[in-house]
């Protein structure tokens, strides 16, 4: 029991609703199994820790070849949502609502609450220095769990021996 725990680190680079969840779910599972978990947020992944953005993550149906009409409850098999429909005003909001409802039906929490769960469970969270500078953000813009703003080299140092997953 005294040996060092396995370490795992996630680089979260996407800010869409569907790409926010993989690291949250895997990270939560890893914490539940006793791993040391680090999350590093960069580029669009900054939306997950940005207190002004975290509740507004979206999913666009345009050019999303996996999103089928059948997800909306219309039994049309492999028929996709036509891109021409996806560009209509309100379609992104509609697809987002659909996905949020499906996630909530599984009793999986919204992103902000999930981030708090991870922080409470001991995950270490860091914001990327370059993204912070590029997007003109400050530590005050981030949700509570974010411990620090670090450079890429610092992240590499602090994840020595960890398995790193890029999302």
């Amino acid at each position, binding site marked *: *029991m005294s040996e060092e*725990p396995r370490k795992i680190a996630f680089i979260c680079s996407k800010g869409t609703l569907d790409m926010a969840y993989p690291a949250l*779910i895997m990270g*939560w*599972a890893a*914490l*539940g*199994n*006793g*791993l040391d978990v680090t999350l590093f947020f960069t580029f669009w992944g900054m939306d997950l820790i940005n207190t002004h953005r975290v509740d507004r993550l979206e999913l666009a149906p345009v050019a999303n070849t996996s999103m089928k009409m059948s997800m909306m409850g219309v039994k049309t098999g492999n028929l996709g949502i036509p891109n021409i429909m996806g560009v209509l005003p309100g379609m992104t909001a509609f697809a987002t609502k659909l996905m949020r409802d499906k996630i909530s039906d*599984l*009793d*999986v*929490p919204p992103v902000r609450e999930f981030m*708090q*769960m991870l922080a*409470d*469970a*001991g995950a270490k969270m860091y914001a990327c220095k370059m993204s912070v500078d590029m997007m003109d953000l400050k530590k005050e813009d981030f949700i509570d769990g974010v411990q620090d703003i670090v450079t890429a080299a610092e992240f590499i140092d602090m994840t020595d021996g960890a398995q790193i997953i890029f999302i």
Partner: protein
Amino acid sequence: MTTRAIAGKIVEVNEEGFLTDASQWTKEIAVELAKEEGIDLLTDGHWKVIDFARTSAGNGGASPTLRAITSGSGVSTKELFSLFPKGPAKKVAKIAGLGKPEGCV
């Protein structure tokens, strides 16, 4: 599947040491299993979680997920991880004599 003696009883366990028959579980067994998991004393907080897990375990005997425990038992995420440090998902299941949780969250 093997058997082992614990707290004066012979129970069936799998290769990871989880009880395979939840009905063989006793509170005395929980105390011993907790010690093996590095928890020397089971407090009221621990029992609240263990009792909740036992009550809400499905017919298949799987332990509830961590999210199900925190939303159902009133124990917060922080408390849960401090009561069962370094892997509450497995530790709660093992000490409560149940199988590993079957959900992801």
